[in-house]
């Protein structure tokens, strides 16, 4: 009994070294029984056509390398099951970022926004000998925030980020901003809020929720953004 099956793909291809313009490639591949995820299928496909380029590393949804647009929705190839996926499987690069090659995008702008929120703990008191104490309840406040893998699925599905990638921090960056605002050990609350008090950086979010819909780690940037907005309001009164 053979459980081999053939699957059809439609893949965005572009190699600036040889292609005048991007095109969609129709290609199929025969899968082995052990090929359970889309990433397995892509690896199988690459054995057939070694010029197909994509990023990948951990193959378990924790490194954030293999985000792409899968049948119209951003996601991680390594967490996308081959069982319930419609064919032909249409793969495109994450929308809104410059394409380097095939489904590999230039993420400079995305990381620039992440860096702009000062993504590190700020506490200028002399470090104590032992750990700073934090109650389990206070630590729980960081759940749903610190787990972000910087895959960019969210920001590249956000219309506000498409239009203003240089000005709007985007859901991933704002989630990170709230991660530090919510940390009882961080002392830079007002500095962080000042940094976001701007018509674009925070307030371009119109709660469209695309970001929540696509996050492969089930995080909720919209909620975090709402909490930052609440903090802004509270400090204004």
């Amino acid at each position, binding site marked *: 009994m053979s459980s081999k099956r053939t699957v059809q793909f439609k893949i965005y291809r572009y*190699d*600036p*070294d*040889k292609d005048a313009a991007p095109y969609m490639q129709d290609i199929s591949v025969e899968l082995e029984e*052990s090929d*359970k995820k889309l990433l397995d299928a892509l690896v199988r496909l*690459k*054995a057939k*056509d*070694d*010029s197909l*380029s*994509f*990023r*990948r*590393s*951990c*193959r*378990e*949804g*924790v*490194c*954030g*390398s293999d985000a792409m647009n899968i049948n119209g929705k951003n996601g991680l190839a390594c*967490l996308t099951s081959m069982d319930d996926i419609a064919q032909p499987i249409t793969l495109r690069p994450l929308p809104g970022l410059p394409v*380097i*090659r*095939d489904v*590999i995008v230039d*993420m400079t702008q995305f*990381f620039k926004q992440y*860096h702009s929120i*000062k*993504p*590190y*703990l700020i*506490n200028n008191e002399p*470090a104590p*000998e*032992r*750990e*700073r*104490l*934090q*109650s*389990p309840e*206070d*630590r729980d406040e*960081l759940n749903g925030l*610190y*787990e972000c*893998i*910087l895959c960019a699925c969210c920001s590249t599905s956000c219309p506000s980020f498409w239009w203003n990638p240089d000005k709007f921090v985007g859901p991933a960056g704002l989630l990170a901003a709230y991660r*530090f605002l919510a*940390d009882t*050990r*961080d002392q830079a609350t007002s500095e962080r809020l000042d940094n976001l008090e701007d018509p674009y950086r925070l307030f371009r979010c119109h709660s469209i929720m695309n970001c929540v819909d696509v996050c492969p780690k089930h995080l909720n940037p919209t909620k975090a953004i709402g909490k930052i907005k609440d903090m802004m309001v509270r400090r204004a009164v």
Partner: protein
Amino acid sequence: MKVAKRTFDAVIVGAGGAGLRAALQLSEAGLKTAVLTKVFPTRSHTVAAQGGVAASLGNSTEDNWHWHMYDTVKGSDWLGDQDAIEFMVKKANEVVVELEHYGMPFDRTDNGKIYQRPFGGHSQNYGQTPVSRSCAAADRTGHAMLHALYQRNVRANTQFFVEWMAMDLIRNADGDVLGVTAMEMETGEVSIFHAKATIFATGGSGRIYYSSTNAFINTGDGVGMAARAGIPLEDMEFWQFHPTGVAGAGVLITEGVRGEGGILRNASGERFMERYAPNLKDLASRDVVSRSMVTEINEGRGCGTDKDHVLLDITHLSPETINKRLPGIREISIQFAGVDPIKAPIPVVPTCHYQMGGIPTNYKGQVVVPKDGNPNVPVAGFYAAGECACASVHGANRLGTNSLLDLLVFGKAAGETVVSDFQSGQLTLKPLPENAADVSLARIARLESQTNGEEVHEVRLAMQRTMQKHAGVFRFADMLKEGVTKILEVAERAKHTQIKDKSKVWNTARTEALELDNLIEVAKATMVSAEARKESRGAHVRDDAIDCAETPNGRDDKNWLKHTLWYSEGNRLDYKPVTLQPMSADVEPIALAKRTY
């Protein structure tokens, strides 16, 4: 071809835990540093570490570094160097508390301290009862740690070269290290990174095996580069097979699951570890648990239609505990095993996980090689830390949570050594040999012009199958012998791989071909070193080693209490003594004894 040259005080290859920890030391001291990495730093495989990092903080149960040292030496089956081990366990609290100060979101105890859980092989009172020594952030400790370290480096303005692949080590006629060549993946351009100090932190090489918990990028690049440049590799026969990889998928299920109370069961539902390790049971050392599992499977007590795995059961834990302490595991299990561990046990098999061996270093992070009768002479300008290095603290078998500790302690130590060597004026920029990039350019040129060669994935698969079959959990004299012949054949094939993609831009066919060169070095080192070591010790267990009073568990201290050194050139072996003397007078050497749990 003209090759661009960039000059730095120091170049660090690798931005995982070890590389980032070292980088912090250099950036904060103001050295002009370049950190090269194949992937964006937070995508390094440290991100996948789950269970925790060891430190005898004693937040939940009484603990001290003496017990930690004993466990580590015993875990290493006495192959670990006791000076380096003493150094590491004494520094543990300091480096873990530092991470907390950097913002790492550790779980907390009720009184607000860092949460700690039990882990395999870690005990109170010299092997008596399990101890809570693993400092954890849920089951995402590596992710929390790597992000905290990256974030701290953002604060320190560390200069990264992201998606740059180091290709070859540059040495001069005296053997001093002068930097590396590297290829920018986006453009395919090769540059020379000329530096006073070079630190390798390139991580593990688990992809030499067919079934592995390691990421695609864990191809042993640093280890391969060092070997090709004439540096011997230490103790490469010792590979850790983690007891609980998801059957079929290879994805890891942390030992922390057993730390939280998980139990391994065979086909009849028996908790079989009670028979093999009456004291620590499911929390015995990894090599012991993996062998017990394979024995159960080999003797027909495996589970499933093919009786080819065992079950990891946590259905007796409350859903609250599972969701709070093991949320990532629940997700992995649903994703990759198709079972929700709240309701049903997870199918698991021993899976290649960690390389105990690597580039030989001392506890300061200096790379050391034999010279003029001294087995440990530092190579000028060359340092290494993390999984690619062998300090050697893990010896023949690493304890869980000791690797994240290793990369913090020795990443920091390597950084400190470079800073102090730099400040004392010992590090100078030595002139580059002529055509320093020739080797790298020739490798690329070969791939450009190769015809009638095999495809990279075919040769890689042949290597992985050979390693899996001939150098697995249990090793057999005849299989090892045959394995050596086979792996040398595969190595020959790797010289003629062919790629169709000739683009300069993000050519992953080319990077995979270059990675294969590194994997092959590691695979050869492993097979040849394993064939030669005629005893059982830690993770290296062979059928012809006899368990008797003279050689307990097949361990032959009279002939084999020594480190292996494998040289790529001439495929040659050498040996050097194990350091049995601790660093200070604070502790007596841990005396040799039979290992039982």
